[in-house]
């Protein structure tokens, strides 16, 4: 089984880092489909918070807004990528 081209992996990582770091700058702040419907139909008030997170709403406390979203994006992408890699590595066929 041939792994992905090194070049394709490098290009992919550059694209992912660009989206993770810059995505929050260009993202629309309008409500998403579900939030919009919840507001229109009047049930948005039912939303409750049952836990706290270190970076709520993709913001890092103490950082200016532009930097905050980029840090959150990079940290999140790194954590998810790492989790998926570890899961895959643990399950991969023993050769």
């Amino acid at each position, binding site marked *: *089984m*041939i*792994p*992905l*081209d090194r*070049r*394709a*992996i490098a290009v*992919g990582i550059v*694209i*992912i880092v660009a*989206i*993770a770091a810059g*995505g*929050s700058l260009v*993202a*629309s*702040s*309008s*409500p*998403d*489909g*579900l939030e*919009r*419907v919840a507001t229109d*139909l009047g*049930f948005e008030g*039912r*939303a*409750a*918070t*049952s*836990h706290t*997170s*270190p*970076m*709520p*709403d*993709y913001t890092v406390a103490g950082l200016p807004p532009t930097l905050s*979203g980029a840090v*959150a*994006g990079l*940290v*999140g*992408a*790194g*954590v*998810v*990528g*790492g*989790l*998926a*890699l570890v*899961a*895959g590595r643990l*399950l*991969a*066929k*023993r*050769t």
Partner: protein
Amino acid sequence: MHLPDGFLSPPVWAALDLLAVGTIAGCVLRLKNTLADAAVPRMGMLGAFVFAAQMVNVPVAAGTSGHLLGGVLVASLVGPEAATLTMAAVFITQCLLFQDGGLLALGANVVNMGLSGTIGGWLLLRLLRMGPAWSRDLAVFGAAWFTVVATSALVSVELALSGTVPLGPSLIAMVGVHSVIGLVEGAVTLAVVRFVARARPATLDGTVLQVAR
């Protein structure tokens, strides 16, 4: 389309949590010692991509935005089981680190935005891919679009079962706005699948990444 806590009633979120945990466990058992090495870097890359892409809300209509789900995309490149685990990593991270989606509703979000694509959308894609060669791109786009619309209908049903909002009006509103958001899903899914297909055409279908069981 992340559900916060409070929108679903305890029986509904509990059932969806169980379904999510059971499906993830099933995928782990099916993949154990059979997952191809080549799928591992793809899982990491696609997981990171889906997380980053989900942060980028795209305006779709007056005062409304939408973002990628990604389930069909990941499943078409690594197969449904590995895609399910990859998508679960996305929602678990969003919930625990970024408070995006409720903790009790985590299973609901995994089922709605993950399994709908990695299993439902993937099966639909397999079906649509049986068509003539010229329709392959259309199949990818269509399966991704339909998954978003079906997911929005599923969320409406869950909200109705929870007694949060009557089915009729929420179904019309959710399906209406998500039939537009689904166009973004279709376009991004097709673009990434074509990008990976150019890099490694022989392994486009995720199933060939898994050794015979």
